[in-house]
């Protein structure tokens, strides 16, 4: 019980201390995970919409794959990216192993299927609703896609948040490809793992509380943007 009480005071102390090491860890966590989510959206939104609307052989299998890959184990993705980026691997010459870039690559692979699979479902549902109407207007593929994505924008924000949740919380992939290097590739989750391994359980839990607060802040920011944009749209 004592650990829990200490953890809250540790979390508070960390937050008010503005300790440079601590802030750089928080900053790197955000940078890596937000970058991965951005890349995943750039790939996942169009990919999901395409699979929802296009008809091609093997489409059912692609949907099955996308849905399955939502459950990719981070440690397996980490291992694969590690093997590819290792000096002995095919992309070893790039020297990316144990850098933030490697961590962004691994998390992008984890998040992209989540974004693509959820986008596909949302766009497919909307197509059922509006497909007839769009066809009667003789809308081209670009107009159709834009209209559907516009209509789905609030649902897609939730998709982005689901992807962000996955990225910011995982430890398996970033530990393997990043190496948890102090001042270089240490993020919140790997710092928590390190503190736990040193038996500093209340510090580890304190960092965990800070991580949750961080996720809360990001989610709140998105919710505020959404609500105010919704109000403006209603007034327009």
């Amino acid at each position, binding site marked *: 019980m004592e650990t829990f009480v200490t953890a809250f005071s540790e979390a508070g102390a960390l937050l008010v201390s503005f300790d440079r090491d601590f802030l750089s860890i928080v900053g790197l966590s955000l940078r890596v995970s937000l970058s991965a989510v*951005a890349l995943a959206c750039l790939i996942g939104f169009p990919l999901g919409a395409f699979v929802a609307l296009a008809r091609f052989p093997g489409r059912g299998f692609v949907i099955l794959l996308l849905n399955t890959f939502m459950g990719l184990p981070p440690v397996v993705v980490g291992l694969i990216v590690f093997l590819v980026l290792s000096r*002995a691997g095919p992309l070893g010459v790039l020297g990316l192993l144990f850098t933030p870039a490697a961590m962004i690559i691994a998390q992008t692979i984890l998040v992209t299927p989540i974004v693509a699979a959820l986008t596909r479902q949302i766009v497919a549902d909307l197509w059922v609703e509006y497909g007839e109407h769009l066809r009667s207007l003789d809308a081209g593929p670009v107009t159709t896609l834009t209209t559907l994505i516009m209509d789905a924008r609030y649902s897609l924000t939730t998709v982005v948040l689901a992807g962000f949740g996955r990225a910011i919380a995982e430890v398996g992939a970033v530990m393997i490809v990043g190496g948890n290097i102090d001042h270089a590739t240490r993020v919140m989750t790997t710092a928590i793992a390190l503190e*736990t391994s040193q038996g500093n359980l209340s510090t580890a839990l304190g960092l965990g509380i800070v991580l949750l607060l961080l996720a809360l802040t990001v989610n709140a920011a998105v919710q505020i943007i959404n609500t105010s944009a919704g109000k403006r749209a209603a007034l327009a």
Partner: protein
Amino acid sequence: MNILTPILSLPLLLTALLASPASAADSANDGDRALLLGTTTSVENSGLLGPLLDAFHDDTGIEVRAVVRGSGAILQLGRSGDFDVVLVHHPNAEKAFIADGHGAARHLVMTSKFMIIGPAKDPANVRTAPDVAGALARIAGGPFAFISRGDQSGTNAAERSLWAIAGLSPWADRTRWYRETGSGMGATLNMASALSAYTFTESGSWNSFSNRGDLEILFAEGPRLANPYSIIPINPERHDHVAAGAATRLVDWLTGPAGQSFIAGFQIDGTPPFISVR
């Protein structure tokens, strides 16, 4: 534009973040990159690693980035050329590493002490054992719960060789009292602490470990419990990308007077976990 705000603002913001200069451009290939050191959990967990590398940086201007795993894993990564230099404690694996041509030579840097820790009540009476093999035999004789790393780390290799001296191989016997965590020293110590079980560790990890519960050092003396750490630069003839010059400077510094006096002077709560070799 109003309708576009929620859907476009987030990715745009994120892309701007991604494009920040420090991000994906951290390629390790540029001219004066940081030296990449692979080392073991005990060196980091003791708290020695950070200040030691800072002191080296102050003296030479060379920045060192350290990746921490068990010695077996570190040597494996060294074989792939993923490090410039490794600091490990697994003498047999180190000799094989050199024999295979992955490193030119190993240089002794420091030693720490292996030890058996366990519940203060010591039901197996390990404290009074004549030697370390006898102590392990008493735990097996109970049998009393024993937590092993089981991860091919240097500590795990040392533990197994001591069981072998006692004529035992509990990891092969599928017994219930001998449990292999397959993870690092910290996770293993946490489990031993939670279960009040015996385990095998070394002074670097133990001296700085906070979550001890009722565990104590029970057996830590004897020649077989010496734990030597060696530094090996990766052979540049095998991997031409390694920073051989900076690696040699780290070796010279660690084995020279500056590094050795730093190690000798390093203490946790008044106890030095590592012994310098000069």
